[in-house]
């Protein structure tokens, strides 16, 4: 267990170690038995409902603890919808809905996908590239409510898109949605869910911001990335001390040392930014500028680190790291996949850049130091 790791994160670390050790999975890729065992353990330990308050039947962990657990999951190249289930549970609970047991998904994940909640209470629209969509039993759908149904107004909580009926969280049975299967770079499910004509099981009474799920979703990917980068740093350091070439451990070659130092820097940047974003999401309103800057920054920076870090780790490992039997790709492929989920670096950078352009040259520094 890492120094100062919370109980929640420690539990997560243990569950993944016991049920889904990446090395073991890499050696036996056709055997998927671990999946069921992992998910049961995540449910039994309460990790799957970490962000659902105790009153609502969840584990009631803090925002920070949830992100720490996700970092631990990242350290084990989590191939399970833990992050999605956490974010969905949080959104459902915040909307005042009961949170069902089982795996959950969030929709939409891409910023361009729009889902409408019609005045007759029926959904329309679809969401592409939903992680683990087919495995989810339920989906927390963030839908724009058509105006005039008396259930909600644009009250400024609609993420600034103005007007209409605001955004609502709708709880949907996944089996009722259309499904087009796809997969991520790492081979994890990445599916299209179709909500056309689907009636939700329930709709939250309170309007929510369209952004909240995106912010938590993006920060959850950053936490996974941060954990995975820490893991590939450790793997690479260990490997460099074992692998002998030219009669010495490759760790003794300065070129290798310098690259590993760079990997350490990238891992550190992702971890520091992920810590900071988690802190912001715990202590500030999701609508605040502080949260926007923290989350956008970490999604950009962790995404950049994911790319640079993955390539260094592969370089240090040589050919063995490029084999399917070796564990490295379980991390690096997910690093590349996670950086695309909930907005890639460019999407968040554009948003951040536009935000700071509006603040102007003389507003930039006060804004950065004021959060």
């Amino acid at each position, binding site marked *: 267990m*890492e*120094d*100062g790791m919370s109980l929640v994160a420690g539990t997560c670390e243990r569950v993944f170690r016991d049920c889904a050790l990446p090395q073991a999975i890499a050696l036996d890729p056709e055997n998927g038995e671990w999946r069921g065992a992992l998910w049961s353990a995540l449910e039994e330990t309460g990790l799957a409902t970490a962000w659902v308050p105790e009153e609502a039947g969840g584990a009631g962990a803090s925002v920070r603890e949830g992100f720490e657990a996700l970092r631990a999951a990242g350290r084990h190249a989590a191939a399970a919808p833990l992050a999605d289930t956490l974010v969905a549970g949080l959104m459902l609970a915040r909307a005042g809905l009961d949170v069902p047991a089982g795996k959950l998904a969030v929709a939409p994940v891409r910023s361009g996908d729009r889902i409408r909640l019609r005045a007759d209470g029926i959904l329309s629209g679809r969401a592409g590239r939903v992680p683990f969509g087919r495995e989810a039993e339920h989906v927390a759908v963030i839908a724009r409510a058509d105006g005039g149904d008396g259930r909600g107004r644009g009250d400024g909580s609609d993420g600034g898109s103005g007007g209409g009926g605001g955004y609502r969280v709708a709880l949907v049975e996944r089996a009722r949605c259309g499904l087009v299967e796809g997969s991520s770079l790492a081979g994890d499910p990445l599916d299209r869910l179709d909500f056309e004509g689907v009636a939700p099981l329930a709709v939250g009474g309170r309007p929510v911001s369209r952004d909240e799920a995106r912010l938590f979703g993006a920060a959850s990917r950053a936490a996974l990335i941060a954990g995975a980068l*820490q893991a590939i*740093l*450790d793997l690479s*350091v*260990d490997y*460099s*001390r074992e692998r002998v070439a030219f009669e010495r451990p490759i*760790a*003794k070659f*300065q070129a*290798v*040392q*310098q690259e*590993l*130092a*760079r990997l*350490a*820097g990238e*891992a*550190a*940047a992702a*971890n*520091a*930014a992920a*810590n*900071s974003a*988690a*802190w912001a999401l715990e202590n500030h309103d999701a609508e605040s500028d502080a949260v926007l*800057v*923290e989350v*956008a*920054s*970490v*999604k*950009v*920076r962790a995404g*950049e680190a994911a790319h640079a870090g993955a390539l260094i780790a592969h370089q240090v490992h040589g050919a063995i790291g490029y084999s399917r039997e070796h564990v490295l790709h379980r991390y690096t492929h997910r690093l590349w996949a996670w950086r695309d989920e909930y907005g890639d*670096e*460019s999407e*968040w*950078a*554009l*948003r*951040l*850049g*536009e*935000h*700071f*352009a*509006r603040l*102007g*040259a*003389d507003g*930039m*520094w006060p804004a*950065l*130091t004021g959060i």
Partner: protein
Amino acid sequence: MAQAIQFDPIRLPPEADRLREEVREFLRGEIAAGAFDPHDPAGDAFNREFSRRVGARGWIGMTWPKRYGGQERSYLERYVVNEELLLARAPTRAHFTGDRQSGPVLLRYAPEHIRLDVLPRICRGEVTFCIGMSEPDSGSDLFAAKTRAERDGDGWVVNGRKLWTSGAHHADYMIGLFRTSPPTNANRRHGLTQFLVPLRTTSGISTRPVVNAAGGHDFNEVLFEGARLPGDHVLGEVDGAWKQATSELAYERSGSERFLETIHALIELLRDLGPEPGVREAEGVGRLIAQLHTMRRMSISVAGMLAAGKEPVVEASIVKDLGTNWEQALPDRVRRLAAFVERSERLDAVLAHDTVIAPKLTIQGGTREILRGIIARGLGLR
């Protein structure tokens, strides 16, 4: 497995926010009074009177004990003062080295009567320090230093040459690293000693300017020809300077001066882009700000860990490595983002300045390669 690298999520405390407002108010007053030009990339950074006024505010040596003129304030408060002075391009050269580097060395290693004499004067902004480590044949490899200090009665006599000594032409004191014994076979780092060198009152010391590639005069050559130092000017252990790398180094490596040196290029770019930039420009600016913000968080984290009594040496080296590479790359990245917009004269001037000073940023105070070596050691690779 290597020791985990840790960056606690530290936020500045409320007293730091209040202090920031005080510093900004002070700087507005200074600018209004014409003490310096916040838009001049190449303004004279040495201004004794300004440093005295900063000292009068209690903003030099502010973490040091009151007995030595300090304020016993936190590293995080110092952090705020430092970054605001940098952002405003305030002329801090007269006190910066003493505040950041030399004062802490004296605090730890100077005899009490010297601490009582010198430290309060640093705090008042009255004395300027320089660092005499590098020599013609000793840069990254400090342990190759040849400038000798030999015992002579109660004191020492120094002969040799220091090079690249920033600010020596303004300085009242140097903290010098001299050879007092030959290295041993068992330890090539053995035999160097740190000294406090009063530059104004010691004869046998001369300073010659070395103009830098950007055309400026910052660093110097300092010649020692039989310069006599009193015995009590030894700092720490004779022959044992190699043991004296401490957490102050962590501070030295990780402050905001390690990524803010070229920040005005980004600020002026934002000015030229206006409130509605194109997609290419906005995306580029967003990336830079994400990187900047992350580094600032890392740097504050190190300051906070120092304040909590930890010694985040590897973390500090990482901040400097990321920071100096970033600030070095920044002028060119701004140049590319400004390629299709009308550039103001101000941005032109900043880029002209920052482009040519950029090479030094990954050399001064320990090169990129040396820093990465320190990080690699922290990872257990060497």
